[in-house]
Each structure stands twice: as structure tokens, then as C-alpha cells.
């Protein structure tokens, strides 16, 4: 490739990184934490569901039978059982739903020839205590409203922030999707501009100078993580853009713009033809069979169609086992296993298989805690890529014979990096104490919306602080110390939160929360130790920093 073209690609690589770098760090860092969003952080945030007894499926079957008599007949069109603790529900939820809404009164019925009116879907949700199976709450109304006001905590907050920055659809998803595309662009341009890429696979010269350390670190993380980062960028771009761009486009081409129809065609389960022959539905037996389908599988929820009829069908959402993607196991009314398929299995060729693995590949939830650990550490590496790239751009700019911008501009940009990146790290770790404080000290009903304040408040405060302080380098070191302290505080906070139950939970086989506590403690100690040694090293090196240059110029 001509050197002129490589120079252009280098310029493109630099500018894409400079423009999107901070946001990419934010997305990648929260993504690395989100890997453990469900169920690990969910369990940490809710000690009451940490060591639940095995699900009593007989009791669930009895509850469905009992509460199905308390809802109107048409609400039994679809019954969904959400098991506690497995994904995002802390309690046991049984939902009775009517897809076609409440019946339309005779006087409101349309005349012949007119389009029939269709009421929006309605439902009644019963929430039960996951230990005692006693009724806790009952809610009825439009399905859209019932789910809009659902309770959430720090685990859904951080996963949601990673997905769409809490900006909602379409802006948020579009932003993260486009960031995935820019990451792919950076990867491709990065490959071309590092011509001696193969020779530099093991090169890392940290002792020579700061610039070389950043340069080698950027290349080492980028090259070794090339395949992983490509997978993350592609799946991230797809997940971000699928709902806001790809689905509307496909619906416009094939379904006259009806997006619901398109999604229903490829993902919805088939409704059985009701025979009107009464027969009990063997819910418990179906659950028990699904639990043992494969080693390591978990069941999230069950959907029952045609409950109480001979034609009833049960669809169980199964994760884990040999499959990368989530699957649906199908049972008839007698709990006889029919078949198992993935969500997009109905698509021909490889398309369905590719669509099915998008989500698990992005979040690393297809091989247990081992794969999640790999994904989280590599996710932190992905976050370091734009950060080292930005620092490198700064170093080169400041040290250039004829800097393109004034030192003040470089310093402002440096402050933005310190505030934006350091702020998101502190804000994310602050979620742990904030969740406990809001849940147990202030005792708010719904932790999710309240947790916005400490998260965005701390981030904004640090961002502003970075522009106010005299030396942003010193401020960055203070942020690292604060991060370490917060990380080390997670264990004592959990001890206070769960008290004696922590030992009992551990004895009962629940090691996840204690694992999070110890991992945070170790990371906190390591950060402090690394900062101490790094400070000694950098003081010995005569690296030219923006602050030094400004001080020398007397600006």
C-alpha cells in the first residue's frame, strides 16, 4: 500500500479515535461490568435472593391453578411464569395476559365492512415471595404500562446504560450502534497503518519512555484482542442498529412497514388451536424435565398457551448447555417434550444461527463464569484501547516540533479525558454503595430511578472538577485513589448489608456475591500498589507533560 494512502488512513484512525474515544471508553468500561449484570450483580444487589431454595414447581402449578380462577377467562390466553433470581426478577411472577384486550361492548362494535377494533393487550401480574410463595403484590392494566413502571436496580441500570446510555430509542441505540461501526473502522484502519503488525506482537518497552509504553501497550492490546474486539464491535453495532434501523428497513421492504408483524413472524411461538376439552396442564413435570435437559442449563420463564385445555402448549426459555444461544423447549399439556429451538431457528440458512449468537457473543454469557471473566477482562482491554490511543495522540501533539494546536487546547482535551473517563469509572463503582444506601438506609420503593442521581451526579461533578483543578495529572491520581477506596469498600458494605447471612449463603453454595466482594478488594489493593509504583517510575522519567510545557511557557 502506498505511503500516502497509509498516511490518510492514519489520519482517519486518529480522528475517529479522538472524536469517539471517550464515549468508546464509557461504553466499553460499562460493558465489561455489564458482563456480570445478570445474575451476578443482580444477586449482589438483592441479598434476599442469593441463596434461594430450589424452585418448588409443584407449588407453582398450584398457584397457577388457584390464581387462574381469580382472573377473567380471556386473561388465560397466555400465562407467563417468571422464575425468581434467574434473570431480572427478584420474586416469582405469574402473569395472566389477554393479547386481544378486554372484550369490546356490543354497542361499540363496528359495522359490517369496517376494520375490526382491537383493544390493547391487558394483563394481571401476581408477585409472590420467592421463599414463602405468599402473594406480595397484584397489578392489573395495560401490558405496556405494567412493564413501563417495573422495578429495577443497579444491575439493570448498568446494563441499560451500556445498551443505550439511558437515552432510550432511537437516539441511544443509534449512538451505541454507530459507535460499534466506528470501532470496526478503527480496527480496519489500525490493521493497515501498523504495517509491521506481525513483528510487533510481543513488543512492549515500558522502561524507555512514556510515549513508547503507550504506543506498545496500544498495539499489544489491539493486536491480541483483534478477533475479540472485532466480534464485540460487530455484535455491538448490530444490537444497537437492529431495532432502530434494520428491523424498520426489513419491515418496510417485506411487511409494508409493520414491524410487530415482522418480529412475530420470526420469533413468536405458535398459538395452539383450542379443542375445548378440559385437561389439567402438567406445569411441574415440564419444569422438572427442562431443568435436566442438559448439564448447566437454567430456565428463565415458562409461557403457557391454552391453559386447562387438551391442546395446551408450554414453552420454556432455556439458557446454557451446549448451545451458545438461548433456546425454547416445547412441551404439550401432558409435559411430553416436543422439541427445542433457538429464537431465530425459523430463518433459513446461516442467518438464523448468526442472529441467535449475537447477544450471547456480545455479553459472554454462553459458557458460565469462566467465559464471563475472560469477556470482562478483555472488555477492560477494549476500554484501554481508546484511552491509550487518546493519550498517545496527546503525547505526540505536545511533543511535536510544531504542535497543531495550542498547549491550552491540549490541556483542555486532557482534562476532558480525565473527567470523562475517570468519572465513569467512579460513577460505576459508586453504584454498589448507592444501591445499598437507597435500598436499606433511605428505603426507596424503586432503586433504579433513584440511582440515576449518584451515578450521573458523581460523573458530572468529576467532569467539572477536572476543568477546575490546577493539575489534571494530580487529579487523575486522586481519582485512582478514590476508585481504589470505593472498590475496597464493597466487601465491608456487603458485610454490613448481609451480615450473618453472608456466611450462611456461602455455606449454602452461593459464592457469587463473595466473589464480587473479593475481586473488588483485590482490584482496589492492586490499583493502589500500581499507582504507587507508576508514580515512582514516572517521576524518574523526564516525560514531557502538558502541564510541564505550560509551566515552562509560563502561559
Amino acid at each position, binding site marked *: 500500500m502506498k505511503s500516502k494512502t497509509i498516511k490518510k488512513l492514519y489520519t482517519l484512525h486518529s480522528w475517529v479515535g479522538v472524536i469517539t474515544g471517550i464515549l468508546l471508553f464509557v461504553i466499553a468500561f460499562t460493558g465489561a461490568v455489564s458482563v456480570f449484570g445478570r445474575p451476578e450483580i443482580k444477586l449482589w444487589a438483592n441479598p434476599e435472593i442469593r441463596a434461594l431454595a430450589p424452585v418448588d414447581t409443584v407449588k407453582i402449578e398450584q398457584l397457577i391453578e388457584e390464581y387462574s380462577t381469580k382472573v377473567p377467562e380471556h386473561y388465560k390466553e397466555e400465562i407467563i411464569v417468571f422464575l425468581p433470581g434467574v434473570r431480572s426478577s427478584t420474586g416469582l411472577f405469574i402473569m395472566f395476559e389477554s393479547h386481544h384486550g378486554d372484550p369490546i361492548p356490543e354497542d361499540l362494535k363496528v359495522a359490517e365492512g369496517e376494520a375490526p377494533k382491537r383493544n390493547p393487550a391487558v394483563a394481571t401480574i401476581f408477585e409472590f415471595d420467592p421463599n414463602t410463595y405468599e402473594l406480595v403484590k397484584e397489578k392489573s392494566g395495560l401490558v405496556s404500562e405494567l412493564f413501563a413502571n417495573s422495578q429495577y436496580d443497579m444491575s439493570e441500570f448498568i446494563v441499560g446504560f451500556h445498551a443505550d446510555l439511558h437515552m432510550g430509542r432511537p437516539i441511544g441505540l443509534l449512538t451505541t450502534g454507530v459507535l460499534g461501526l466506528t470501532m470496526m473502522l478503527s480496527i480496519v484502519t489500525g490493521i493497515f497503518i501498523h504495517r509491521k503488525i*506481525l*513483528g*510487533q*506482537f*510481543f*513488543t*512492549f*518497552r*515500558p*522502561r524507555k519512555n512514556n510515549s513508547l509504553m503507550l504506543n506498545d*501497550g496500544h498495539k*499489544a*492490546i489491539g*493486536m*491480541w*484482542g*483483534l*478477533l*475479540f474486539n472485532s*466480534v464485540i464491535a460487530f455484535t455491538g453495532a448490530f444490537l444497537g442498529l437492529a431495532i432502530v434501523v434494520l428491523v424498520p428497513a426489513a419491515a418496510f421492504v417485506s411487511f409494508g412497514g409493520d414491524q410487530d408483524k415482522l418480529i412475530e413472524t420470526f420469533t413468536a411461538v405458535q398459538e395452539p388451536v383450542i379443542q375445548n376439552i378440559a385437561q389439567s396442564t402438567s406445569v411441574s413435570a415440564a419444569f422438572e424435565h427442562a431443568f435436566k435437559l442438559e448439564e448447566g442449563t437454567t430456565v428463565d420463564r415458562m409461557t403457557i398457551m391454552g391453559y386447562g385445555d387438551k391442546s395446551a402448549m408450554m414453552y420454556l426459555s432455556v439458557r446454557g448447555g*451446549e*448451545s*451458545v444461544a438461548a433456546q425454547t423447549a416445547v412441551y404439550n399439556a401432558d409435559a411430553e417434550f416436543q422439541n427445542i429451538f433457538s429464537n431465530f431457528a425459523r430463518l433459513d440458512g446461516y442467518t438464523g444461527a448468526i442472529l441467535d*449468537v449475537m447477544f450471547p*457473543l456480545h455479553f*459472554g454469557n*454462553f*459458557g458460565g463464569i*469462566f*467465559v464471563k471473566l*475472560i*469477556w470482562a*477482562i*478483555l472488555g477492560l*482491554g477494549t476500554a484501554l484501547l481508546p484511552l491509550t490511543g487518546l493519550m498517545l495522540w496527546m503525547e505526540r501533539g505536545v511533543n511535536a516540533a510544531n504542535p497543531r494546536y495550542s498547549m491550552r487546547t491540549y490541556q483542555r482535551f486532557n482534562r476532558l479525558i480525565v473527567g470523562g473517563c475517570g468519572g465513569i469509572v467512579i460513577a460505576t463503582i459508586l453504584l454498589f454503595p448507592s444501591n445499598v444506601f437507597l435500598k436499606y438506609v433511605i428505603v426507596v420503593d424503586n432503586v433504579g430511578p433513584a440511582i440515576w442521581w449518584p451515578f450521573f451526579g458523581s460523573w458530572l461533578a468529576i467532569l467539572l472538577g477536572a476543568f477546575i483543578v490546577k493539575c489534571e495529572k494530580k487529579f487523575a491520581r486522586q481519582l485512582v485513589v478514590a476508585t481504589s477506596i470505593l472498590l475496597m469498600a464493597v466487601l465491608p458494605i456487603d458485610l454490613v448489608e448481609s451480615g450473618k447471612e453472608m456466611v450462611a449463603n456461602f455455606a449454602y453454595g452461593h459464592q457469587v456475591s463473595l466473589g464480587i466482594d473479593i475481586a473488588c478488594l483485590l482490584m482496589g489493593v492492586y490499583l493502589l500498589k*500500581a499507582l504507587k*509504583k*507508576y508514580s*515512582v*517510575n514516572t517521576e*524518574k*522519567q523526564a516525560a514531557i507533560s502538558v502541564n510541564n510545557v505550560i509551566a515552562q511557557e509560563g502561559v
Partner: protein
Amino acid sequence: MTILAILLSIVAIYFLEENNALSSKLTSWLPAIFLFAGSIVLFCLDYGVMRGIFVFIGLLSLLGTIVTLLPYRFSLGKT
């Protein structure tokens, strides 16, 4: 089996390293390729073909980064 697969990958990566650079010798590449192949097979046996390949990709990225950056960890503060 997972531990053995990880060990094979680590040894393979060390075979590829020569004076802080990627080796160009065939005598380094051949055993490394065999070891990587063994590692993939073990992961596929443990996790299934598709999952095994993705686990290997992730692990290779992680181990490569660590092996490259690890010497720095030991040299911190020794300058």
C-alpha cells in the same frame, strides 16, 4: 480439560515469542500450531464446537495480552 487447554495455549504462545517479537522460525510455528489445535479440540470437547471456538478466541486474546504485558508487571519500580 479446560486447565489443560489453557496450558497448551500458554505454551504455544511462548513458542511464538522470540526476543520480544513474533518468531519467524518454522520450528517455533509448527509446535505452536499443533498446541493451538490441541487446545481448540479440548475446548470443543468441553464446551461443544461453536462455544469451544469462541472460548478459544477469547482466551487467546487474553493470554496473548498478558504474556506481552506481564514482563512489565515484574519490572515495575525496578528502573
